[in-house]
């Protein structure tokens, strides 16, 4: 699965991104190790969400956004001309900040992805739905209410439903954009446990403003910063999570993780 032949599933090389004339990210280079969790941390507005949205090209939706540089997934540049964005997004799934189940039944939410590629076989769909919900540690709570609306669940359950929905597509990479910022501590705990479990099969990237969370769940951490307002976001430091939290090399990283700003 380590597609780049060096243990890295995805690599960002010299990525610079613009919204219109505004440079949002400058010269970002990062590697995402296969079947590991990489955390992106930094104060709000530092561009960490923007960066993670480059990895499945969600920024394409914003008129006037453009990127320079390369993002390599299994040896192939996903920013290259004519690259198939649709299949990219099936390989690189995403869980959002606010749980966003569709106004459909729990079952239909999970079956959404498989149905997109034309799967109609009900037996297969049943299996995928059950399997995905189990992997997302939600099955026991919802197995009797699969027909109920996904939006009737609690916030934490909704977020796990969204994770199940992503798993049902069998992606290779899962991006988490501050997945716990809108839910309670107990649900947060469940989702962190779930991430540790999912690490066996998936490469994951998590954006978080919660340093403890980054320290708890991730293997590698990148610290991002916007030096002054109006400047682009840049990577300050990137490395092994333990090292970074115990012995940061950059003064600014140390200031941030010890809570001196941000």
């Amino acid at each position: 699965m380590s597609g780049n032949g060096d243990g890295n599933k995805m690599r960002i090389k010299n990525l610079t991104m613009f919204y219109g004339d505004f440079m949002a990210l400058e010269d970002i280079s990062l590697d995402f190790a296969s079947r590991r969790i990489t955390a992106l941390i930094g104060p709000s507005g530092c561009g960490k969400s923007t960066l993670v949205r480059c990895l499945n090209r969600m920024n394409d939706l914003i008129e006037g956004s453009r990127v320079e540089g390369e993002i390599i997934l299994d040896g192939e540049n996903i920013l290259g001309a004519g690259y198939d964005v649709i299949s990219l997004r099936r390989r690189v799934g995403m869980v959002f900040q606010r749980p966003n189940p569709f106004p459909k039944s729990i079952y239909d939410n999970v079956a959404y992805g498989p149905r997109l590629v034309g799967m109609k076989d009900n037996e297969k769909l049943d299996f995928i739905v059950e399997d995905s919900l189990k992997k997302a540690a939600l099955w026991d709570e919802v197995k009797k209410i699969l027909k109920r609306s996904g939006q009737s669940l609690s916030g934490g359950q909704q977020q796990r439903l969204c994770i199940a929905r992503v798993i049902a597509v069998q992606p290779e990479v899962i991006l988490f954009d501050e997945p716990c910022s809108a839910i309670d501590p107990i649900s947060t705990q469940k989702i962190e446990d779930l991430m540790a479990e999912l690490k066996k099969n998936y490469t994951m990237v998590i954006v978080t403003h919660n340093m403890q969370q980054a320290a708890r769940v991730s293997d590698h951490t990148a610290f991002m910063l916007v030096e002054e307002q109006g400047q682009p976001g840049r990577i300050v430091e990137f490395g092994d999570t333990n090292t970074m939290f115990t012995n940061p090399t950059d003064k600014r990283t140390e200031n941030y993780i010890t809570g001196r700003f941000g």
Partner: protein
Amino acid sequence: MAREKPVRMLLMTCASLSFLAILLIFLFIFKESIPAITRIGIPNLFSAAWNPDKGQFGMLAFLVGTLLSTAGGLLIGAPLGIGTAVFLDQVAPARMGNLIRRGVELLAGIPSVVIGWFGLIILVPFIAGITNSAGYGIAAASIVLAVMVLPTITALAAETLGSLPPELKEASVAMGATRWQTIRKVLLPAGREGILVAVVLGMGRAIGETMAVQMVVGNSSQFTLNPFQPTGTLTSNLVTNMGEAVGNFRAALFAQALVLLILSMVLILCIRLITRRKEG
């Protein structure tokens, strides 16, 4: 606080005018159509024969004309309006979207006599040419109505789509759905109620549209299902005859106005049902 009371009462009176207006409209129209029910009788009123000189006051031809032209107008106008709404909200580049938004607003403001006039001098001869008929009738009325309901449906459907949480679209796109899959499987179902309300309000506009329809429908009292044959609608019949009618004739026209009024009330109830289901 004491000084506020008169102001409050005055403002409340303004708001209550809506009730007074609808009440008065109902009372007047109803009162004037009582003779139609007592002297002409329901069977005569709803028969297919309209010949006021001979005491025949059947509105069936007009009722069918109204329903058919409304159905025809919606059949063309609703897909066009919903499609335009989706286009300007989801597909078009921002500038193009704004251009269409402005354009649709402008179209809503073009007087119906003007649209009717173009129906009369362009559309009717065109239909006459390709169908070997006089050109007047339900077909012409339907096309004119489609143009008239387009702004209503587009504006309301676009408003509905625009008010959907952006998270829905993001979630779908992030799953690898194409734009069309996102529109069809997520956005349209999520906005179903609002779009339905848009269509129902468009229907209201079509049922009540008078001048434009009157100019192209042919104004005959003939009962017909042939879309290329001159016929009439409730509204066209009212505007054509109300000026001169007296006695039973006038009462029969008021009865038709009452039917129009009831039709529009039914639509309001439909909208209530749709929105209540959404909330429930």
